């Protein structure tokens, strides 16, 4: 392998892993508090649409991101109304969010922009540009360093680094603060948290708010950094892949990060390995690599490579005893 290929593999792995990391962390907050989140996909999709629509209409990056976050948080709260305030089924509510998002974004897109569900591309000023563009350009000539450090690691926009920074931040918040302890406790044993005089409902809503915020960032990344406009169903299963990564990382932030990077790498490799011959194995069908994240997650869930243990109270609505 030459340095240019390694550098571009590294770069695209990070680029493809970023929305997965945002979403997996979003799912982590929700599921650690005991609320199943199947709706990651829908929230990310709707947030992407909001970012595209607001970005194209207002020409402001900030407004685009606020719109994305606002929409994703509202969807999270709707999930909370159905499943935290009332005893609705969390899986059904998540499925509803996904279906509504895939339909409503196209309906609104056609009505507002009349481009078959796409939003008009946002201008270059609205897009989020690479953070260290000059540094990357300066390093371009240096062998190895230019490709690996310059293009591979430093050539990204702020959201990529934000996603990476949020992983230790999430770990610290969950495992080193009082709030984190309570959040994890509410996912394991809500009765106990309630008995200690802490509101289960408020904790779960807080978790869902953070969840929506992160989904909003994931959606904005897709439209403002990866491609310049929203197109129907542009998330293409990434929300579910993030859910898989969360489980693959056993509901731990750092574990989820590694899983996201692995899935991002597989995604990047699938594009490059199209029709390529590998030593020993011969031609690997692209579909095998595409299916690998899901297969690995099922194998892990089945307990054949270690054991993934979900939070105890996951999926069970909590009813306060009277």
């Amino acid at each position, binding site marked *: 392998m030459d340095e240019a290929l390694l550098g571009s593999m590294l770069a695209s792995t990070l680029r493809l892993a970023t929305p997965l990391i945002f979403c997996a962390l979003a799912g982590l907050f929700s599921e650690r508090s005991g609320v199943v989140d199947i709706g990651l996909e829908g929230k990310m999709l709707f947030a992407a649409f909001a970012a595209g629509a607001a970005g194209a209409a207002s020409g402001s990056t900030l407004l685009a991101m606020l719109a994305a976050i606002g929409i994703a948080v509202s969807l999270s709260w709707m999930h909370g109304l159905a499943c935290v305030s009332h005893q609705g089924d969390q899986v059904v509510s998540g499925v*509803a969010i996904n279906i509504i998002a895939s*339909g409503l974004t196209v309906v609104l897109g056609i*009505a507002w922009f009349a481009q078959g569900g796409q939003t008009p591309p946002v201008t270059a000023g609205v897009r989020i540009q690479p953070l260290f563009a000059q540094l990357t350009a300066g390093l371009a000539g240096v062998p190895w360093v230019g490709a690996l450090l310059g293009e591979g690691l430093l050539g990204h926009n702020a959201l990529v680094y934000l996603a990476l920074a949020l992983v230790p931040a999430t770990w610290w918040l969950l495992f080193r603060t009082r709030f984190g302890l309570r959040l994890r406790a509410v996912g394991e044993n809500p009765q106990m948290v309630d008995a200690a005089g802490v509101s289960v409902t408020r904790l779960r809503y807080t978790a869902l708010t953070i969840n929506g915020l992160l989904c909003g960032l994931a959606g904005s990344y897709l439209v403002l950094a990866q491609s310049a406009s929203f197109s129907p169903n542009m998330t293409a299963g990434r929300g579910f892949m993030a*859910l898989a990564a969360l489980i693959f990382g056993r509901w731990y932030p750092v574990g989820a990060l590694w899983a996201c990077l692995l899935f991002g790498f597989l995604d990047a490799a699938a594009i490059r390995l199209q029709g390529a011959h590998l030593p020993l194995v011969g031609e690997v069908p692209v579909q095998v690599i595409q299916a690998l994240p899901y297969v690995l997650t099922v194998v892990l869930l089945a307990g054949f490579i270690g054991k993934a243990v979900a939070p105890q109270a996951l999926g069970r609505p909590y009813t306060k005893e009277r």
Partner: protein
Amino acid sequence: MSAASHTLPRWADLLLLPVVCLAVALLAAAGVVALVGQNPVEVITVLVHGAFGTARGFSYTLYYATTFVFTGLAVAVAFHGGLFNIGGEGQAILGGLGTGLVALWWSAFLPAWIMLPLMVVAGALFGMAWASVPAYLQAYRGSHVVITTIMFNFIASTLLVYLLVNHLRPAGTMSVESVAFADSAKLPGVHEALAWIGVEWPASPLNLSLVLAGLAAVGVYLFLWRTRGGYHLRAVGSSPGAAEYAGIRPQRQIMVAMAISGALAGMVGMNEIAGVHGKLLLEFVSGAGFTGIAVALMGRNHPVGIVLASILFGALFQGGAEVAFEVRGFSRDMVVMLQGFIVLFSGAMAYVIAPMLAWALATLQRLLPQRKQPGAAHG
């Protein structure tokens, strides 16, 4: 999933609540229609006429409904076993693959009366096999069936792409589909069947798998409420602990519920592959597995309700296509959105709506002049 409420009388829980939930979903959709500058009344008029106004439109409605009966029943059977099968999509893909494979292999030399039953069985078995892996993992390894069936949906669709692109596509063609089956593997359309007995009916994709769907609905009813096996399955679904104490093994019932569920979803291929396309292709399921969830929720997991809900959704899909054709700026995605609203309000939000409805009923009863309580006679 069900919306049992202590305060609602039984008739209200069974009839009024689903109607109110549907009405709320329709209102939300009408709100969006108005928001995007369309006239909800015009849309509804075109939709109803498109779905029920002509014999051809009604045939299309029933054709869509056929697929939804299969996937809706699949969700319902799993639900009665206490499981949420989100994998209808993947099981339907695999079922269609099974149906298509036997047709590709043997349709050239087997007569239709052997071929067609064989295709039904192959579809059901493939769907069953695909569902039984998550079932086994849930029953014996404790992995949650919701997550594993989601993963299996993705694995199924990539598997179908792989097989079509690399093996089943005839060499040198660009489109990703197999060769056409021989005539013996083609399920006759309803218009052809009616022509045999001299009735004239416009041509449509509606085919004899409609009968198969009807049989499946009756079969599911008889199995769940009229056999010992069905009783065991429902017992585990409503209380695994009590069922185990009564000598029913929950693990076994999980396998049974998912196997039947997968087999039902697997028969979607009979409608789409054998009945309409006559060849194996991509995207023949296109979300029907998820529509099945909405259908089962609306139909309250009962075969009669599911058939009615399927016809409703069939009408929405067919009528939606007509509206997309006639009204500028309207697309079929409006129907997808409405489907989402129905899942939200009939499913997740039923617990939000039920107390409000109970309150409204109680207020209404207080306002009405007091009569003798009709239930009092039963003691």
